Each structure stands twice: as C-alpha cells, then as structure tokens.
C-alpha cells in the first residue's frame, strides 16, 4: 500500500500543484444489536478501503475520493481532483496558502487487550444476550436495547512535503438502554450514557460494568415515571461525566473550531460567536476553567502522530484560566489567524476531505471527589446522562435535558427528578463554574457520532472531563 500511495503522490508532482496529499484507509466494522431481549441484527463490513486525493492549485482546493483502487480509477481521481481545483479557482477572491512544514515519518499501531475481531462471534453475542435477557420488557419497561460496535481502522497519509504516516487502532462503542412508559410519559435510562465509546476492544465491555448496572437502570427508569420535576427558576447544578462531556463538546468544542469563524461550515453545522479579536482577552469561563485539545494522548480516540494534512500531533491550550487563548485550526485557517496549526484536521475515511475536528478535547481536572462536591452543595441537583441536546448555530444558546437528576439537600442526595432541563448562554455558563473535581474523577468519554461537514462525516473523538458545579443556572424550562 505504501508503494501505491507514493506512486500516486509522484503523479501529482505537476507544475501548478502547490501542495498535494494522498490518504488511504482500511476499515473493519462489526455491530451487534439486541432489542427487547432478542437479537435483531449482527452486521459486519470488513476490509473497506478508500482513497482520497487533495490538491491545491491556483490557491484553490480540489478533492476526489473513491473506493476503487484500479489504476484507471486512480488516474481518473487525479484528473478529477486537479480539474476540481482548476475550475474552482475561477470562483475565488483570495488564494489559499500556508507555510511549509518539515517532513515527518510516523508510525503507531495500537493493540487492544481483547481483539473483538479475533474473538469468536458467538462469544460476543452470548455476552450481550445475557444483558439483553436481563433487560427484557416487564412491568413499566416497554423497550430495551443492548448494542456494541467494534471498529478497526488502518490509515496511511503522505504529502508533497515528504511526510508519511501509517497508523492503526481499535475503538469500541457499547451501550444499553431501557425505556419506561406510562400514559404519555416516556423515561429512558442508558448505561454508561451516550458517550460510552473508548479506545480498545472487548475489554471495554468488562470495564464498564454492564451486568452490575442492569438493575439500576430498570429501577431508575421506572422510578422516573413518578418522580417530581424541578420547580425552581434557578439552581446550582453539578454535571457528572455522562453528560458534561457533551456540554463541553457542544458549547466549547464546536465553538472553537476556527473554520466556523470564516463561515466554511455555515450551511450545515453553523457559525460561532467567537471572533478573531477575542483571542487572548475573552473571559470564556471562570479562572478555574482550563480546556485543551490534545492529539498526543493515545488513550483517547483523537490520538494521532500526524493529522490528515501533515501537522504533528499537539497539545494546545484553548482556554487557560478562563481566557480564550487559541482555536482548533487547519493550516489554511491558522495562517489566516496568525496562529500555529493545532493538528485538528481529520477526515472520517480516506475518501472524505479533512475538516477541522475535535481530537481529545478536555476539561482539565480541579480538586476533590464527586462525593466531596456533593457534600459541599447545600441545595442543588446532580444531573447525568444526556437525553436531549440542542445549541444554536453560533454555539451561544444551549438547552439540555438529562435522563435523570438527583436532588441535593444539605450536602446529600435526597431523591430524583425527571426530565431536568436547563439552558444557558455559553459565556455566562462557563463563568458560573465554581468547582471541578480532581484527577481521581477525570476520564475520557468518547463518541462515534460527531457529525460535521458536507458531504457529511461522522467522527470518533474523546472528551476528558471531571464532574463540575455551575452556580445559579436557569432550570425553569417547562415542557
């Protein structure tokens, strides 16, 4: 494969091509799905290969991608990518340019503890079937689901600056859910929440303690049907990791993707309230809020030695002591903003073009345990497990409903509330953060399903978070 990529790249050494890169991906996926105690689907896709060719001509990008690796197809892709750039350059104002980088040779190959693709299929189904049986509808539980997705991806990257990278990794996404219903009410509980993916193989299912939590989610979903709602207008809330990861993702992660500043994603994903002049001065959060993008940590799904346009992996502070100090950028956008590229250009598969993407996007830990934080809260709610999420196209006004809220009185959990819903304005919300738990509570919460770009791409990425408290938040939304 390395030879094919280098040969393809050599055909792009043409006059007028200022920069070119070639990417190849080979992907295996497997998904197992149980519903209401029975297996409804077992699917696999093995050895799915793709290639993408990107060129910069006359200051304009052209891209072509395919899954066809025949010589005729590769020649067609080169011709199409070049033609796309040339035609596109007839409708431009400024020209894309960026400084050259030193070439890098990189290799990284991750091995899981339990390779899900080497494991007998019946062993995987038996494990999930046992969970599914435990969650079979009964009483007020009307629906249940258990699923696991496994992915192995091998990636090659080469560019006209001489950079070459070859990596491979395994990611796994297991989740289970029960739904309780009564009248028009419907309450769901998942475990371990919607950001339950991780780097690794089948060992993740063992670590996430699924069997130990079947009884808990059945009870909580059922109890939620008769639970009260939050009555007050405003309250202090502690957000636990099963939801805080998404709060961070939506209101800071996407907001600090700098392609949005320039309107490159306006037609689908949207814009951002951030302006270039805010860098270095904007008080995004309280002084205890430190947020960074880190593609150097191999424990997260966002790890890479080199991103998908040749920038070496980096850890970059985005918010430091509450102040917005940097952005997630591409080489083109970093040049426009006068920044160093942050190593955030990623494509889901090789036949997708790269976009500015979150990698491992993290809230740095503070101090203390979750128990200590609850004990320190006189009156408030502990919210966990995302149910509904929504944010405006400038990433400024968000509203979330979690699956469950735990009422805190006098430093102790005293009951549950259903459909806890809060909304806020991004800056006000992060400035209301007065406590973040310590490293002992910090961990990665990851997703397979971050959608962005047109044509659409679904990215796998991670968020490192520890539970945090936010003061005097508006919880008055009534449905």
């Amino acid at each position: 494969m390395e030879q094919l990529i280098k040969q393809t790249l050599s055909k792009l050494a043409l006059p007028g091509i200022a920069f070119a890169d070639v990417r190849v991906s080979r992907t295996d996926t497997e998904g197992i799905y149980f519903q209401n105690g029975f297996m409804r689907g077992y699917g696999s896709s093995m050895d799915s290969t793709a290639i993408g060719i990107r060129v910069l001509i006359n200051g304009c990008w052209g891209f072509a991608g395919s899954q066809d690796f025949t010589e005729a197809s590769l020649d067609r892709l080169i011709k199409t990518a070049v033609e796309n750039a040339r035609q596109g350059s007839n409708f431009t104002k400024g020209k894309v340019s960026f400084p050259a980088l030193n070439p890098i040779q990189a290799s990284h190959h991750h091995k899981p503890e339990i390779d899900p693709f080497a494991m007998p299929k019946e062993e995987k189904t038996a494990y999930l079937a046992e969970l599914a049986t435990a969650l079979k509808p009964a009483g007020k539980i009307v629906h249940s689901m258990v699923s696991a997705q496994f992915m192995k991806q091998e990636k090659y990257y080469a560019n006209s600056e001489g950079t070459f990278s070859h990596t491979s990794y395994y990611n796994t996404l297991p989740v289970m859910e029960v739904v309780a219903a009564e009248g028009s009410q419907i309450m769901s509980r998942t475990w371990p929440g919607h950001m339950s993916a991780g780097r690794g193989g089948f060992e993740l299912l063992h670590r996430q303690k699924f069997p130990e939590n079947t009884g808990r989610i059945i009870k909580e979903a059922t109890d939620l049907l008769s639970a009260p709602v939050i009555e007050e207008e405003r309250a202090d809330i502690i957000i636990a990791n099963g939801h805080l990861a998404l709060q961070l993702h939506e209101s800071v992660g996407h907001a600090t993707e700098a392609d949005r500043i320039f309107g490159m994603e306006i037609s689908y994903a949207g814009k951002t309230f951030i302006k270039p002049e805010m860098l270095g001065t904007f008080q995004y959060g309280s002084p205890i809020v430190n947020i960074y993008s880190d593609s150097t940590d191999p424990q997260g799904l966002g790890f890479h030695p080199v991103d998908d346009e040749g920038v070496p992996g980096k850890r970059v502070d985005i918010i430091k002591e509450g102040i917005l100090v940097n952005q997630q950028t591409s080489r083109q956008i970093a040049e426009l903003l006068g920044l160093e590229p942050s190593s955030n250009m990623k494509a889901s598969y090789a036949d997708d073009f790269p976009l500015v993407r979150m990698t491992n996007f993290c809230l740095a830990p503070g101090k203390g345990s979750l128990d200590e934080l609850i004990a320190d809260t006189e009156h408030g709610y502990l919210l966990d497990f995302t149910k509904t999420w929504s944010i405006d196209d400038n990433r400024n006004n968000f509203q979330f409903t979690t699956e469950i809220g735990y009422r805190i009185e006098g430093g102790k959990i005293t009951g549950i509330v259903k459909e806890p819903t809060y909304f806020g304005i991004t800056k006000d919300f992060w400035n209301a953060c007065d406590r973040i738990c310590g490293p002992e509570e910090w961990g990665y919460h990851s997703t397979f399903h971050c959608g962005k770009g047109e044509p659409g791409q679904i990215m796998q990425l991670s968020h490192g978070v520890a539970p945090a408290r936010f003061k005097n938040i508006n919880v008055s939304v009534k449905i």
Partner: protein
Amino acid sequence: MDNLSYLKSVLDAHPELQYEIVKRFWSTDFLRFYHSQTNYNISKDNTQLSVNIYKGKKSFNFLVDNADREKIDAALQGALDIIDKLPEDPDFVNLESDTTLAKPRTVKNNIEAIPLSLKTRILANVSAAASMYNFDIFGTFVCNYQKYRLVNSNGLDKSSATSPIYLEIKAVHNASQITVLETFGGEDFEYFDDQDFTERLVQKIKYCANPVIDVEPGHYDVILAPRCLAEFVQYLAYGMSARALDQHSSFFEGKVGEKVFPESISITDDPSDPEMIHQDYGSDGHIYRLLPLIEQGVFRAFFTNNYFAHKTGQPKNGNTASCMKIAPGEKSLDELIGGVKKGLYISSLHYMNFINPRETSLTGLTRDGTFLIEDGAITKVVNNLRFTERIERILNNVAALENRCYTIPFSGNYENFDVETVKAPHAYVREFNVSSSTHTI
C-alpha cells in the same frame, strides 16, 4: 456475470437460506463555497453490496465495498460459519414479497448535465446580486447520481436510479452577519429559474436593512416559512413509523382513524410529483405509492416496512416518509403576514431534538432570518430564538395555510449525502412558545 449476479447464484444453491442483496452506486459532485468563493470542489463515488442472509429466524448481514469475488466469498463464508450459532429473532417472518415494478423512467445524470463551469457561473451571478447589499454568499451546490438494485429470495429484482440536485445559498451580511437562505432541490433542473431564485434571495436581503432586536420569551403568533413547517412535519413523521409504534414512542399509538389536527391539515407521502425527488421503491423493495397520512386532520396510516408491518399488525405499505406533501390553504403570503398584529416570521430551524417523542415535545432554534411583524408588515430583524414546543400543539394552532406550496430540499447528511424533498406552504401559527433568545444573529 456481475458481482450481484454471482452472489445470487451462490446463495440460490443454498435452499435453506433466504436472502436480500442490495447493490448501491452513489456519486457526487459537491461544490462548497464561502465568502462568495470556492471552498472545496469534491468528487466522490462508492459502490456497496449489502447482504442480509436468513436461516429460519436467524440472520446475519454484511457489507462489501468495492466488491470483488474474493471479498464476496470471504464475507459469505464468514456469514455461513456463524449463522447457525446466532440467537433467533422470533419476530422475523419472511422477506418482502411485493414484486410490483415501478413505471420505467429516464433519469438524467445531473453530474454531467450541470458541470462545474455552469455551477460557478450561476453562483457568480447570485453573488453579484448579493454584493450590491454588502452580502457574501455561502453554501453548497450538489449533484448526485445514484443507482440501486435489489434482489431477494422471494423473486424481487428491482432497479432504480435518481439524480438529486441540491442548491443551498446563505447570504450573510459582511458586517452584521445577518443571514438569509434560499434553496432549490429536485431532479429536473428545468424547474430552476435563476432569475426568480435570485429575486427571492434579494427580497429577503432587503428585509435585513431593518434594525436588529431581541424579543422576550413568550407566546407569539408566527408565520412559519415552508421549510420550517416541512421540518416540523418530518419530525412528526418519526411517530408515524411502525418502528416507533413498536417502541412505544409514537404520538400516534392507538390513533389511526382519530382526528388529531384541524381539518386544514392534510399530509400525503407522494413519490410521483415531478418537482420533487422521485422514489420508486421503499427500503425492502416494496413499490412506493401515494399514501395519505393525515386527511383533514385525521391520522390514516403508519409507515411500515415488511418487518414492522408483521410485528405491529399495521398494513404494509413500504413508504419511508421521503416524499411528504403538506396540502396548501387558501390565503396568499401577503394575507398571512397582513393578518399578524404583532408576531414573528421564522425562516429556518436549527438543531431540533425531541424531549419526549410520545408527546412530540422538542426544543430547537431559529436561524437564517427571524423577523418581527408589526401591523401586518415585516419591520425588524430578530436575534435567533429558542423554542420549546410540541409539534402536536403547533399543528393544532395552525390558523391558516398559504395557497401555494414550495419544494424544499433536505439533506440526510450522515455518510452519503442523500437528498429528499418536502412540499409545504407557509403557515400562520398562533401562540408559538419562544423559550429564550440566543442574543446572536
């Protein structure tokens, strides 16, 4: 022998198996633009075989991209090795058996018919018109060409092709960032009138000369643009699926034949409208026919595929809510706006998500042009707003519908960029619940 025929011949030698094979070819020419210039020109294609194999009530499925015999043999062997060891699905009865063929039609490949040079020429013209008002244009101009063939062990052998066009232009003011939107979608570019398209966009741009204000949360009379009404109905259609019924998350459970909305509300799923993107077959290969969903406010039918029709006992139709049409009313747009004493015009919606699908409660936001209406005229630009509502309540509060419909394209933007169209009029809705302001435009 092509790969699909080869796989079929191999599977036909296993009489103990049932199977469904779908071959899909998808290609796109995708122009992304920002600040009135090219961002990316993207060409992309893929071919995929999707195979479901059943042995009694046990099943396994696999995908093969860019298939060759070696890949097919390996995937099939893997399936045959495991299928006996898998648990059963007691609700599986049979595969689709509807062998009705759609009327043959000629499908023009719009990737070839609308080359990049034509796209950039059209965009340059729109850009020139917008720039007169200090607006740049942003968006996408997409042509797809896709082919599909489905065969199964019940004798189905069906082929279909479509070539959707999707043009979305957002005009953004270079100083204030006020944004307005115009779109075109369909399969026949003859319906695209570039002069009319540009005039409609410029009319919206002119509204943006008004001052920008915030409005307080509360209940407002609103004029929903066709795109908004269409999107609410798309979300509502989630509950019209037999899958949602099976999961007890449908608003329509137990309501077939019941009046759920005012008489002015009629919704059909109609695959044959020439202005829309055509649909020959549903996902199992069932013929796609006109299906009344809401008739004068009465709920008529769930969308059912073969599996969930059996499982829920609902009549099988094979529809997938891909071609929905909302019937028009009797008033002109001017009359609708003219009837609003104080309210809002909402152009487009963003990031909606259900809170409780059984109640149709959701939250979402406005985008791409929200305007204040005072004494029957648009007077101000309003910062984007959040709403927390129930779709059922919105439709029950429809006071009037416009007397014409518009074809609105929507992209199913996960993985392949698929396009579908909905036809809808403007709607006058009373007491729409605005729950907060975004304070941004």
